């Protein structure tokens, strides 16, 4: 076919310009800005690694990092276990499958802003559903989003045991955020798992049945290994999304946002706060870069793990 050798570039050009201008340049700028004094009013002088040196000594940065890790460490396993459980159950049934899929998937299409507002009211101490249910089962009311004590501290103090603060775990307020985030992620992960489960050949189970393997043995011996590519995908996606949690913190906590006692301040909210509330764009860029490096490292690590484990 007669063709100008520049024709393919014409097809790529619109997307290329947009990606270059609004992805590539900003990502490169993140590096550059973090080495300069830079406020809303514009660039200042070159300051080298000053932001990074400050970062290491910044207690708020470490607090937000710890809170983010709490969030990820709780949300990811809970979401994976629950969604695999739901998917395995859904895979067993013949009737009402569509109905169940619909209700499980509903949180996925709803906006995080709207559901955060709803969950904030659910966790309201006076007029919330959470304390209403606690009262129904005969338990005392909790402070929920206003409670800065760690969940392990609260749990053990129930039995009269005092544990050191650093062992206290995420605050109850952060745990409310964890519940919402798990709930929001379940629908999508369940659907992904369901698709993964349907790819497992039926013959596998039939063969196991003949060998006399129990349902439990089948689940751990066949289902979990064979669904592991899906598990890695779900693990990676849920980890990356949870690291970026922002809307639920912005809408559910405070005032001041990130409270009580900064126990729900996460890294992306810290970027937002330093960048736009305190107008220190260069410091915010340095924090953003740290977030990027963490996510990149985790992605590469998970990819490596996947190569070594997949069946």
């Amino acid at each position, binding site marked *: 076919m007669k063709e100008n050798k520049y024709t393919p570039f014409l097809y790529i050009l619109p997307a290329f310009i947009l990606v270059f201008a609004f992805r590539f340049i900003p990502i490169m700028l993140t590096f550059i800005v973090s080495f300069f004094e830079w406020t809303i009013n514009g660039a200042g002088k070159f300051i080298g690694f000053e932001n990074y040196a400050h970062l290491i000594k910044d207690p708020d940065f470490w607090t937000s990092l710890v809170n983010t890790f709490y969030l990820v460490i709780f949300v990811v396993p809970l979401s994976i276990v629950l969604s695999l459980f739901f998917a395995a159950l859904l895979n067993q049934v013949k009737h009402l499958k569509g109905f169940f899929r619909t209700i499980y998937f509903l949180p996925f299409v709803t906006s995080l802003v709207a559901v955060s507002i*709803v969950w904030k009211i659910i966790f309201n101490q006076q007029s919330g559903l959470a304390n209403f249910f606690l009262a129904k089962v005969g338990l005392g009311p909790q402070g929920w989003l206003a409670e800065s004590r760690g969940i392990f501290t609260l749990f053990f103090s129930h039995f009269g045991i005092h544990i050191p603060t650093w062992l206290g775990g995420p605050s109850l307020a952060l745990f409310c955020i964890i519940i919402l985030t798990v709930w929001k992620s379940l629908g999508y992960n369940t659907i992904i798992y*369901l698709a993964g489960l349907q790819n497992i050949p039926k013959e596998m189970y039939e063969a196991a049945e003949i060998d006399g393997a129990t349902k439990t043995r089948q689940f751990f011996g066949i289902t979990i290994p064979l669904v592991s590519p*899906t598990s890695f995908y779900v693990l990676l996606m849920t980890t990356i999304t949870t690291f970026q949690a922002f809307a639920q913190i912005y809408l559910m906590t405070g005032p001041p946002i990130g409270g009580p006692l900064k126990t729900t301040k996460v890294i992306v909210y810290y970027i937002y706060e330093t960048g736009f509330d305190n107008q220190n764009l260069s410091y915010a860029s340095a924090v953003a870069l740290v977030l990027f490096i963490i996510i990149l490292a985790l992605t590469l690590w998970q990819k490596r793990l996947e190569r070594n484990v997949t069946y």
Partner: protein
Amino acid sequence: MKWFKSGIIYIILLACGLSMIVPFLWMITTSLKSQTDVNEGNVGFIPIDRYQTYTMDGKTYRVQIVLHKGSHSIANLYDSDGNLAKEYQRIPNSKIQQVKKFKLHWENFKTAFQKVPFARYFINTIYVAIITLFGVLITSALAAYAFARMQFFGREWIFILFISMMMVPEPVFMIPSYILLDKLGWIDSYNALIIPWLANIFTIFLFRQHFKSIPAELFDAAAIDGCTRFGMLWRIVLPLSKPVIATASIFSVIGSWNSFMWPLVMTNSEELRVLQVGLSYFSQEASSQTTLLMAASTFSILPLVILFLFAQKQIIASAASTGMKD
């Protein structure tokens, strides 16, 4: 034994499903309560109006107690239209009747919708979503077509560059994006909400995978018939790609509709607020008016829920396909 086992599975599924939708049910029932009902501690799922009445000379009035005085109360009486009928009546407590009545307060939706310009927010959101959708489909179809079916210098490198850009999460490049859009003078304009999102790398990736799967014979035949490059895209590739276009469209619309952090940062003025940002400001302004907040949350998720209920097969299949490895 078998029916017993599957019965248990259904019960577990139903219980878990219920816990998934309880927040939505409660959102809707709370949005239909009166604020006094909520403030007086009705947390449950049934909207109930509680009030007191007093019957005098064969007419029933609503009672608003001003002062308790032993066995009597001083109260204002209102007629059935809510107008003040009699002021400071001395009435015996034993004659006051407690009334509990089931009532749905649909007016909460109207009040919430009018309290802040939600109509404007809806229009902004729809406008941004539609323009972004068309932009994404056009730029992605063109680029994916070149990546999938053309030979050119640097093709793999450009594609790898694209994919690595896709891996970078939004919060990482948001601060410099703000600086860039500020330099362009786009902060607080539709440009800031739309133009950076007109290319979607994930959609390019999705389209490329699909375009590659179209048999080469179709293109050869079209070339013999004298079809141009663009003609092939228009007449062969796109008609064969309807499902993947639907998938990309659904994700684009859901993404635009629910995007929050970007419009929050990039716009300030009220006229430019999209739904999510407007809702977030509303939740701060009306933080004590639970019923209005629930009503606003309900109508802001309603369009996507309706879309979902109509196109759920496609949406769920699309979501599942994103998790499939090639």
